[in-house]
């Protein structure tokens, strides 16, 4: 048995490590937030002034007046929501078949879907660009939702298959004996059972779509059609780096995401880990 002194030392060391870890994790946000409320002169102070002498909200005003940032938020929201709904609607029926029904070629299907989820965006971008251009879909919401399905659908299928397969065996048999059709089993029994898991998948797909960059950069060339990540990345012009505006914009998008993560952390973690960890 170790002595009390050693125990206290070990404990202190442990919490010091945890604290260091937390500081490293959260420091960039804290710094960005402090920057966003500093007066312009204090942003450029050397040595750096960590805490502002007065609170300045001009940068937050700039974000919405100098840039169409509200529009970026709306664009991101519409595209991400539509992608999420579509990929879950289509994905759930495929996932049910993969998880619960017997048919030949199941392993190949699962492997194919997994491989598609690993397709690099860059490898499909030029044909998609040409297709969308020919269909006059560049700078439209559909022109972004369609490409987003390429990563959202495989992810939805993969995760939902995992969740469906965890339901107890024998549900289908009992329902079939009661005279329920396949569609009836799917819509009336299986879908309601998997509702909480669907929510986890929806959160993951939504966040992924919200954060997507390459497709959004390429297919939305008009300023008012840009999404949040592209909008922020294009804040800097050739002549100036508006650090204050960028800091404020980062805070505006980061805070809702942090809240989302804190409120739904259990769903997000279960979604993330079911993709990677299985018993």
């Amino acid at each position, binding site marked *: 048995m170790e002595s009390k002194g050693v125990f206290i030392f070990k404990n202190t060391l442990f919490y010091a490590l945890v604290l260091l870890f937390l500081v490293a*994790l959260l420091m960039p946000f804290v710094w960005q937030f402090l920057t966003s409320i500093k007066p312009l002169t204090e942003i450029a102070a050397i040595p750096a002034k960590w805490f502002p002498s007065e609170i300045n909200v001009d940068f937050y005003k700039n974000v919405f007046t100098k840039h169409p940032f509200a529009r970026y938020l709306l664009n991101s929201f519409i595209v991400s929501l539509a992608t999420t709904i579509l990929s879950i609607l289509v994905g759930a029926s495929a996932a049910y*078949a993969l998880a619960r029904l017997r048919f030949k070629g199941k392993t190949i299907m699962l492997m194919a879907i*997994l491989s598609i989820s690993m397709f690099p*965006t860059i490898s499909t971008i030029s044909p*998609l660009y040409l297709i969308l251009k020919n269909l006059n879909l560049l700078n439209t919401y559909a022109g972004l939702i369609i490409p987003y399905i390429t990563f959202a659908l495989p992810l939805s299928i993969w995760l939902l298959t995992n969740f469906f397969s965890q339901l107890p065996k024998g549900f289908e048999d009992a329902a079939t004996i009661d005279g329920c059709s*396949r569609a009836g089993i799917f819509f009336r029994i299986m879908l309601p059972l998997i509702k909480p898991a669907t929510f986890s998948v929806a959160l993951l797909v939504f966040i992924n779509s919200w*954060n997507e960059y390459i497709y959004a950069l390429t297919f939305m060339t008009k300023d008012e059609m840009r999404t949040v990540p592209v909008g922020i990345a294009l804040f800097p012009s050739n002549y100036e780096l508006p650090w204050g505006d960028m800091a404020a914009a980062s805070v505006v998008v980061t805070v809702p995401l942090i809240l989302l993560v804190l409120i739904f952390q259990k769903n997000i973690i279960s979604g*993330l*880990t079911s993709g990677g960890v299985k018993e």
Partner: protein
Amino acid sequence: MEGKLPTSPLKNTHRKISKTSLEKKEARDAWIMMSPAIIILLLIAVYPIIRTFWISLHEMVLTDPSSGYPFIGLENYVKIFNDQRAMDSIIFTLKFTVVTVFFELLLGFGAALLMNKAFIGRGFVRASILVPWAIPTTVSALMWKFIYNDQYGLFNDILTRFHVIDSYQAWLSSSSGSFMALVITDVWKTAPFIALLTLAGLQMIPKELYESAKIDGANKFQIFLNITLPLVKYTVIVALLFRTLDAFRVFELITVMTGGANRTESLSVYAYNNLMKFLDFGYGSAMSMLIFGVVFLISLIYMKALGSKLTDF
């Protein structure tokens, strides 16, 4: 089924027929239910990849339609290996992938071991881990770019306060400084993801295993080596797969932080420049097919390592 002796040949035939017809119906239902997903994925993922490959076999510079976009076979691929800028981007991408994945694994695994202990505030730490993961890469790249700023960045400020450096450095204007800055930002953003996956794996190890090992007199190191490590191996391999693929495709982190300057152009960035800036679809497509090929190879290797564990539904 095979072990049972048939009581009567007639009954047996009857059962066999009904079973196969049921199975057939089940298989038919399965294909019907999968068909919307299959059709969509064929149209917007598989067809574009084939099309990219086809474009890569042509000389197709969009600014020069008079050329008629002739078929040139593998010439675009040969060009990659005679193009110094392309070779530099390949070397940078490989270096970046190896270094970031190494540190992410090391720190992520360490953090997971730390969080696997019960302590006050563990829930808070676990939730905070999701924060870097959830933020768009472009936003975190901008935040870090400001931290590395040569005059009023936090990085210089802290390092001089602790007397690690004597004078402020322009981190993003040298090749080694940019590389380090990119690695730190990527590790910050994604090591937490590895930690989270590993933690989930650690928590699935039955407590009884540790207890019986302790009773048998195993020391901490032996327990780690013989119980913890083999049992989270699978989880770590999956995390490694995701991270390697992502690191190899690195794009927005670089476009936002360095723009590819100071020898930090990744293969994806150079391919994108060829496609969308120089409008050289043929050459850019060859390069993006190269990325696809490598990514495909990496995932095959990992899937082989994981074996049936991946699809045992």
